């Protein structure tokens, strides 16, 4: 083993207690240091005998957590990167944390969430046995370009022997690494499905083979659904694991595979999370686990709600929900979900990227890929746009048809909180961005809203 690698490992390990003492634990610094000292650190660091990676635009954190929780509940020692990041330095930090100073791993299996763009720096050294790709949508304009580009990166980066677990309802991610062994998961027709896209983002409108128009038998949202080409006959692959008979009242579904049908309790009522659950089931089945065992493990698991915080305050429900700044798809999904909730809703839009505002200026093109039109709904009684890009949000809301008397625009986030109506019985959604400054600001604004709501009741 290279001396350089050992030096890097020891230096990185030494940095961990120091970071803990200085209350900087949870950062990628150890991995960054290791990669700086030894650029091919990932090649030499000890790894568990089984490696599972989860990638894709949306759902990778939820799916990774589900898989980790189930494997841990089964008694396996599972290494993961949920406390750190999903880029190469985050993966390096996790792997070095999981081995001894003599470079021996302490884990049976690694479940690693991998950022799609970082896959070229990870997969040459960390070769997964199984890779799950949840879906591919357009994401950050600046970083990810478009999903075809991300699919091409994954195709060139994923090792040829890695088994893929792919979304049959997403013809973009389903096309990744076509020579690799693969199975597909999917979700059957649901109430409310459409055949024509009702979203602004529709990332796959033409046949990947002949550029003919795709026709959908059903579409859950955006380009996710079952499609075929009317010109050449190309069609969505048949799912090996199909979520079907979804019953949102009873919170149940059936998963159909080669072994037959098996009932499951739903962990969440959102279509996104039902997909996440079916994805995790497909992975566990591929690892050889039987349905009864998976269902039993899942019955003790909750989908992490780290990005969703709800509290009753006075006579309103205050919900703080991450909506991922600069990500039209994520915000569209949140808008769709919020408007589908019962009762009156009030929204405070503060998904601005506050870090961008410090250094340059947020690229706001995504606002016109995002379905603000969902907010033109009678259940949405009031929307307040705030933050550095408040005026852009305000314009977008008005162009989406939200009536002027339902929208306010206030630059200062705390003054914006004062504008909220806090009508008794309503829900107030505070939507915030993914950067740390936004999160800190959102917590402070949430406190103010709660204070106002409690004061109003008193």
């Amino acid at each position: 083993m290279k001396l350089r690698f050992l030096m890097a490992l020891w230096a990185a390990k030494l940095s961990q207690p120091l970071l803990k003492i200085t209350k900087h634990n949870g950062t990628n610094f150890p991995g960054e240091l290791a990669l700086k000292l030894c650029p091919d650190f990932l090649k030499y660091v000890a790894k568990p005998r089984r490696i599972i990676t989860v990638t894709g635009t949306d759902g990778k954190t939820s799916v990774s957590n589900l898989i980790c929780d189930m494997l841990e509940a089964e008694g396996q020692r599972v290494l993961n990167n949920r406390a750190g990041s999903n880029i190469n330095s985050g993966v390096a930090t996790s792997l070095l944390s999981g081995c001894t100073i003599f470079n021996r791993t302490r884990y049976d299996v690694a479940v690693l969430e991998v950022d799609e763009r970082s896959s070229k720096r990870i997969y040459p050294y960390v070769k997964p046995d199984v890779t799950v790709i949840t879906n591919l949508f357009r994401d950050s304009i600046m970083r990810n370009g478009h999903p075809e580009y991300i699919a091409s990166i994954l195709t060139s980066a994923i090792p040829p022997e890695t088994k893929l677990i792919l979304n049959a309802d997403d013809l973009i991610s389903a096309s990744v690494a076509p020579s690799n062994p693969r199975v597909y998961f999917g979700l059957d027709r649901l109430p409310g499905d459409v055949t024509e896209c009702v979203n602004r983002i529709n990332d796959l409108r033409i046949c990947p083979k002949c550029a003919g128009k795709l026709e959908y038998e059903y579409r859950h949202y955006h380009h996710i659904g079952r499609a075929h080409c009317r010109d050449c006959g190309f069609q969505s692959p048949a799912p090996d694991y199909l979520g079907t008979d979804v019953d949102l009242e009873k919170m149940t579904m059936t998963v159909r595979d080669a072994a037959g049908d098996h009932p499951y309790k739903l962990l969440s009522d959102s279509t996104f999370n039902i997909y996440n659950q079916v994805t995790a089931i497909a992975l566990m089945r591929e690892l050889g686990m039987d349905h009864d065992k998976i269902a039993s493990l899942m019955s003790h698991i909750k989908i992490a709600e780290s990005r969703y915080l709800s509290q009753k305050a006075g006579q309103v429900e205050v919900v703080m929900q991450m909506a991922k700044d600069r990500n039209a798809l994520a915000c569209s999904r949140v808008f769709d979900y919020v408007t589908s909730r019962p009762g009156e809703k009030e929204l405070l839009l503060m998904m601005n990227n506050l870090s961008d505002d410090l250094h340059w200026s947020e690229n706001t093109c995504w606002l016109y890929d995002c379905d603000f039109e969902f907010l033109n709904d009678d259940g949405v009684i009031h929307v307040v746009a705030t933050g550095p890009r408040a005026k852009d949000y305000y314009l977008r809301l008005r162009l989406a048809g939200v009536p002027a008397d339902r929208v306010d625009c206030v630059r200062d986030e705390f003054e914006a909180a004062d504008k909220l109506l806090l009508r008794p019985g309503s829900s107030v959604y505070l939507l915030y961005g993914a950067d740390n400054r936004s999160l800190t600001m959102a917590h402070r604004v949430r406190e103010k809203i709660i204070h106002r709501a409690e004061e109003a009741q008193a």
Partner: protein
Amino acid sequence: MKIEILYPEVCNLYGDLANAEYLSRSSGAEIVTTSLKEKPHFPEEDIALVYMGTTTERGQELVRDAFAPWLGALKERTAQGGLTLITGNALEIFGEYIQDEERKIPMLGLFPSHAERHMMARYNSLYLGKYGEMDIVGFKSQFGHSYGDNGEGLFTTVRGPGLNPEVKPEGFRQGNLMATYLVGPLAILNPPFAKELLHLMGVAAPQLECEDIAYEAYQIRVREFSDPNRGFTY
């Protein structure tokens, strides 16, 4: 009055289609679309604006093949003063070729330029420029730049890159055929330019939808982008 969107099934990235929507809603113009396997409307119909937006790299080649038979009709339209707006990397389709590492991809050759593409080096920037006396603000997000003679360009750069980071002229202009690398809702971000486009479409007294708000947002952005302390590349 009609606005034709060319190939929206592939030329639809980064909110670009909002340009045609906004101009349509501000003028009452009907939107007609042409898909890859259809004949465009503009050679035979009275089209006030032909619009093409940003696409994928595969999309560039599909559009090149689909549009090649209609290049002459576009030249004729331009000679007669017809208005055409091309945004984002759709501009590269009308250059001579795209050099993608070792691969040289022939394009339509309307503009005397070629693009150099580097898929692992995405380029992001803010943009501040001039259209006549008018301030233009916008965003660039692309995998390459174009090189060659673009004359005075469509816009004159004040801050940010022109057709490439070494030159001031941004985009191309041949009569009322306009092409720019700027992506996204250019017309919404720049209400004075949107009114200019409406004027060129033949709208006598252009009035934009939500004009007051659009101008307020525009003025905020012009101030921000004019601040010398504001970073410009991402």
